[in-house]
């Protein structure tokens, strides 16, 4: 299955400070800390492509501004 048919989140690697609050917040374990380091020197979070329900828990928990954007899959028939 491709991303086209699933909910997903986008983590802005330049804005994420790698605090991992989103990882704890996600009910389905969709987010992980990657191994790359951004310009601020943080290992930033990334979407691990699993069963995202677009609940927004990561978004609301995230202490940064616009580090996480949540996308909802197209509704059937839409």
């Amino acid at each position, binding site marked *: 299955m491709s991303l*086209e048919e699933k*909910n*997903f989140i986008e983590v802005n690697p*330049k*804005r994420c*400070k*790698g*605090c*991992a*609050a989103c*990882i*704890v*917040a*996600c*009910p389905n374990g969709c987010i992980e800390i990657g191994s790359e380091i951004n310009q*601020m020197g*943080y290992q930033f979070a990334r979407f691990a492509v699993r069963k995202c329900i*677009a609940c*927004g*828990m*990561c*978004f*609301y*928990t*995230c*202490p*940064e*501004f*616009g*580090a*996480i*954007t*949540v*996308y*909802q*899959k*197209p509704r059937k028939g*839409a």
Partner: protein
Amino acid sequence: MHTIKHQKARSLYPTFERKAPGADVSHYCPGCGHGTVHNLIAEAIDDLGIQDRTIFCSPVGCSVFGYYYFDTGNIQCAHGRAPAVASAIRRTHEEAIVISYQGDGDLAGIGMSQIVHAANRGENITVFFINNAIYGMTGGQMAPTTILGQKTVTTPDGRHAENEGFPIGMVEIINSLQAPVFIERVSLAGAKKVMKARMAIRKALRNQVEKKGFSFVEILSPCPVNWKMTAVEARRWLENNLEPVFPVGNLRDLPKGPFDKVDKKKDSRMSDRKILEILGVNEEEVHAGTVQLQEEQNVKIAGFGGQGVLSTGILLANCAIAEGLKTTWLPSYGAEMRGGTANASINISHETIGSPIVSYPNVLMVMNLPSLDAFEDKVRPGGAIYVNSSLATRKVRRADVTAYHIPASDMANDLGTIQSASVILLTVYALVSGAITIETLKKVIPLSIKRKNLVDLNMQAIEAGVTWHRDNCPKP
């Protein structure tokens, strides 16, 4: 097509130019709760459609730079004073949405007075109180909300109640007041709790839109850097250590405030003409005559407090104005007046009056013996002393002044009010000195005394004074 379900709020600037050109990350440390709360507030502002109307009051503390982020009106306030600043903004723009965003040092320490009184007035504002039990910006010192045993750089072996006291529960304090409509403590310890915080924040802002009154949300918030732990550990520590001390939950959620915050009586668009009328700007003055003074009158009127000494002085000054003369009136006041004598200094002159102080009067009116004792020797040679002989039982001793001993209190008592005794003295002075006319006195009295029956009694007092003068002062 995918739809965006959650994204950065519009009420946050796209880039934070006030921070640095092109900046798009916050100044907050990783895992800090402030950013979370900012996001929740910004979303609520978006959803309520109040971005243009919002004025965000930043405190002193880590959130001092609220104006970096919120694309709203912004003002930065002195430490702890945001609720006072917000109260004044509220009273300037009725439709503005005023947010006071404060930390624990700001609100529960230095600004305790401001928050309690703003809450007590039920100001229609919204206060977000970030409680992370520590001072962040200054580097991890004890806060009023630091819990017992918690180590900070100023409580290196933990907070001890016997030295630093106990952590302060702010929602409980606010809840002891009558005026607030909404009081809730929430926590950022986990995603579900964040969602509860979200609801409280939205409610607190909606209340203001609906002009319900004062809403207060305390948010238990992680400070991983100063707590010296990871962001994830900090959220756990918050749950296990702060929440037991500061129980989360709603303490008050009233459908309506205890009073209407919109003052319907106040006419903020009152016309200039009406204001000029209220201030009496165009009132016509009494202009009775134009007296020619023999010499400048430096008058001292003295007596017990309550004998009308100060008001008789005002009456004399008003008469002088009506006569087209320059005048000053200066009271004795404060402790001098308590239990002792009160006195008023009045100058009347054709020329601009320099010193308003009458150190050496040429006219002395005394209502009692202590005043005669105090001022007799100060009268300039050739001056006049008017004595209320009902109470000042001795005669004037000096031979180089003219003395008038008038039983004014007895005369006033016969008329029905002892209070008009000083007017009898004033009447005799007027007739003797010619500084003011009886006609003027009669015209001015109704203007300076509001109560009709007192006006009548004072008119009778004037007549009594005129009679006494006729009977006791031989024509020259």
